[in-house]
């Protein structure tokens, strides 16, 4: 039911009702209805959630938080968080208009998270996997020491347990407030992925709107398989910086998932509604083969078994 219908039926409902309903307050109204950023359609929020926060009309993929993403991907009650109590220090005593610790508190208040990534293990359609889910809503998904450490630990865990690894990225890049430490997280996470790759294990990187800077320039671009969500903007440098540098307008679709696909940077663009299925299929396909790797690179017996 769209808004027009809803309004059209309003009078009738009012007449039908014994107790005439009060018009909605602005807040109630906003909670009930969400306008699509792309096609401007007014969507019933509950329907939107059922559709994994994808506009049913134009397929616009709304940004979602880590918790929602996990709900969408994990089999019920299978997600096990790790390192949930890792929080940022303030190694530089960084102050701009506000001290860094205060900015952190603010970020947590807004996002309900301690940091910009949630890590752990879960099952997807019965397949166990290690996961890292970034949340752009927390401090712009920026990577400081905690994000770097949590990503590194979940990679190490996956290697130890020989699990496939999925990281869903969404980040503005490295976190300036931790200075050189933030930069070094690029090296730390990539280095952990080197060991993981040498162990012959599968890493699927999922790029969600938006993924930039230090995150793309490290683990996000190092997937064996890289999947982007439709419309997600992904790049190293931001659009504005590039436009200022080259002094010309960039094409409208520049740095979108579809543009990346055309330029050979991602394996596939997958709608959120199909993501779980594709991940399942990919894990199942590589699952047993992963026992090979550098240690023994023969065709595993499993590669000959039935799907």
């Amino acid at each position: 039911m769209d808004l027009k219908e809803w309004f059209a039926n309003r009078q009738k409902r009012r007449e039908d009702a014994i107790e005439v309903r009060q018009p909605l307050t602005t807040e109630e109204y906003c909670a009930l209805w969400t306008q699509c950023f792309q096609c401007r359609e007014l969507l019933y929020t509950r329907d939107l959630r059922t559709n994994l926060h994808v506009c049913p009309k134009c397929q616009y993929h709304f940004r979602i938080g880590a918790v929602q993403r996990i709900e969408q991907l994990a089999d019920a009650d299978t997600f096990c968080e790790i390192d949930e109590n890792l929080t940022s220090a303030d190694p530089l005593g960084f102050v701009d208009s506000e001290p860094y610790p205060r900015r952190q508190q603010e970020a947590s208040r807004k996002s309900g998270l301690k940091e910009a990534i949630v890590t752990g293990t879960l099952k997807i359609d019965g397949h166990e996997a290690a996961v890292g889910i970034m949340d752009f809503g927390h401090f712009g998904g920026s990577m400081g020491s905690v994000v770097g450490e949590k990503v590194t630990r979940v990679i190490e865990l996956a290697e130890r347990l020989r699990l496939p690894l999925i990281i869903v990225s969404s980040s503005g890049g490295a976190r300036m407030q931790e200075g050189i430490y933030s930069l070094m997280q690029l090296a730390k996470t990539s280095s952990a992925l080197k060991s993981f790759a040498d162990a012959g294990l599968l890493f699927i990187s999922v790029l969600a709107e938006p993924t930039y800077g230090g995150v793309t320039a490290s683990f996000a671009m190092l997937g064996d398989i890289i999947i982007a969500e439709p419309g997600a903007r992904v790049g190293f440098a931001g659009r504005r910086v590039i436009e200022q540098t080259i002094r010309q307008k960039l094409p409208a679709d520049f740095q979108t998932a579809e543009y990346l696909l055309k330029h050979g940077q991602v394996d596939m663009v997958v709608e959120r509604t199909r993501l779980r299925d594709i991940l399942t299929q990919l894990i199942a396909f590589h699952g047993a083969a992963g026992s090979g790797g550098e240690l023994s690179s023969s065709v595993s017996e499993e590669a000959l078994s039935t799907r």
Partner: protein
Amino acid sequence: MSPTEKKAVPLEFEQPLALLAQQIEALEKQLAENQSPDLDLDLARLHEQYDVLKRSLYSNLRAIDHLALARHPQRPYTRDYFQRWDAQWIEVHGDRKGADDAAMVCGLINFGEVRAVVLGTQKGRTLRDKQHCNFGMPQPEGYRKALRLFHHAQKFSLPIVTLIDTPGAYPGMTAEEHNQAEAIAVNLLELAGLTVPVIAVVTGEGGSGGALAIGVANRILMLEHSVYSVISPEGCASILWRSADKVSEACQAMKMTAREILSLGVADEVIEEPLGGAHHDYDAAARNVQAVLVRHIKELSRLSPAQLKAHRQGKFRKIGSFVEG
């Protein structure tokens, strides 16, 4: 729409057959309007003639006829096989460095009982498709996309299946700038070093270095009417005969048909096609190829990683013909 649903377009050498088919059709029409035992007899004779001619025609093809079949506009292409082998096959894209060459199709596939990394050149069916796929001629980016998949297969210990159907690597300016030669050479080198089974199937045209770049395999299989040559017959004719009319001679001289490549010891097996060519029955063609592929993958999987590499290197080490002393 699959070309199997429409009538196959007859090639030049198939004209006698097509004429006969027309006669049969005419006769059948006549017969439908007007029953007659005489006509019935004629028709039976014509049918018989047709079958005999067809068998004799396709078992006595000249090299240039095979070439025509290999290039048949309705011939099944790489995607047609992948789709039939596994409707759920997962396509992967890109060289990760700026391009996704549509002339090289790559993916992950389940043959029912065997998993494999698959890739192949793709010609494109419609004009738009053809242009998108650059008529099956990969650029360096396509070979580097394939290379990425070779490494993927190596990492996950998966067999590699490649389908070859290309006039050759694209002779373009940007292709040269991006080092077409190096892209091919590196693939030859890297394929030689893999420790997983590699099987190449020439499904249509195997054109020169651009075909070999995905063809350094433990097994080289060729479809019955496919061809494999060091240079296009047109190129050979224009250089050696200095005449574009001598394509047939060039085809014959180069010994490029599947049977010839087999008897030269380069191909390991010729895969039979539906009578008249793979384009008459996509499903049957795909089934044939799959059965042979799965058999070879199983055979090769009995070798150790080191043996697989040594086997592949040994295979190519022996190819050549010379006199010593």
